[in-house]
């Protein structure tokens, strides 16, 4: 196998990785969309399950983490919500909608858990 063969092999690997990532993203997107549809019908448990699956399928999907954080907030699991928001912000630091959700979450969380002493 010459240099040409190696180049072709590399190209195939890159293409295959890209295709695999696109597949993972598209599967995660369908989980996210299903989650949104059920959340809008107030079925938050199912929505949460879908978004948990979405982040498991594609751990670089900021929207999925954002939605998952909202679901955790809804069930009062604030530590998990904070983690999910932090991950979403880490992936997409310039996403203003994620930032706004996170700010609202922090406002409530800080107001209820922080005081000058205990």
């Amino acid at each position, binding site marked *: 196998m010459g240099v040409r063969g190696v180049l072709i092999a590399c190209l195939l690997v890159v293409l295959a990785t890209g295709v695999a990532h696109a597949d993972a993203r598209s599967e995660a997107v369908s989980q996210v969309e299903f989650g949104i549809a059920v959340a809008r019908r107030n079925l938050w448990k199912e929505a949460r399950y879908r978004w948990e699956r979405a982040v498991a399928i594609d751990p670089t999907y900021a929207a999925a983490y954002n939605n998952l954080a909202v679901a955790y907030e809804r069930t009062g699991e604030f530590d998990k919500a904070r983690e999910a928001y932090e991950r979403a912000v880490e992936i997409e630091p310039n996403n203003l909608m994620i930032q706004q*959700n996170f700010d609202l979450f922090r406002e*409530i969380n800080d107001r209820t858990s922080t005081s000058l002493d205990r």
Partner: protein
Amino acid sequence: MTAPVHRSIVSLGALVVGALVVVTMACGPSYYEVPIETPIKAKLDISGFQRVLVAGFVTGGSDEVDANLETVRLLRSQLRSKSDLRVVEADVLALDAIAAAAGGPVSNEEPTPGAESDDGPRIRTEEDLEHYEHIFADVEYWRALGEEYQNPLIVTGSVLFTPHQRSGYVTREQEAYDSFGRRRVTPVRTYTERRGFILRPKFVFIDGRTGATMYSESFREEILYNAQQNTPALSSYFELMDRLVPSFLTTLSSQTIRGSRTLLR
């Protein structure tokens, strides 16, 4: 000849519109705003109590507001409507006088720093307040009070409501119109004198059965207005207390906070 061409243009148009509808439906909006209710668990287990007594507060600072009376009234009314506890209706305790009588600074020969005569409050600063703190640790006093009211949860503490002023540069937006009538908004920094108040409440929760402190929490909120604005002290007091009441309530009872969040695709 023109009719078939026209028909094919129309059908092509219909095809494009149809395709656009399909694409729009497939894409849909990229975000959805949803209402959410966030449950906040109570910080304190008060399952052993059916009644709550908001006894009174050691207060100081501005003499424009009777912080003891107003705080007791506000907290009682909030607890009545937003908790399951029965609120004990009792006279408001003048806790600073009680603390003084129980060995506080007023009974001592030497006056407390910041102390004044009868025409003004004796407590002006946080340091002054510290001299009255011992009352919250007086287990015997609170147990006796608890017995008198059938062992309720007792809410007490201190409230310092002090006037405050601060000067400095403030950025505000200035509106201007150019020669073409176009509106332009530019940020302008101006030196402004501002006046307002600082509210420093400390809520102490005492077990009326034992007289022991179960939990305490301190807060600090401030508000500033333009110096020309004449805002009554009582309005400022309520504005600041409004910010703290949700925290106070979540100590005693689970609350739900309504809001909205954005779900993303």
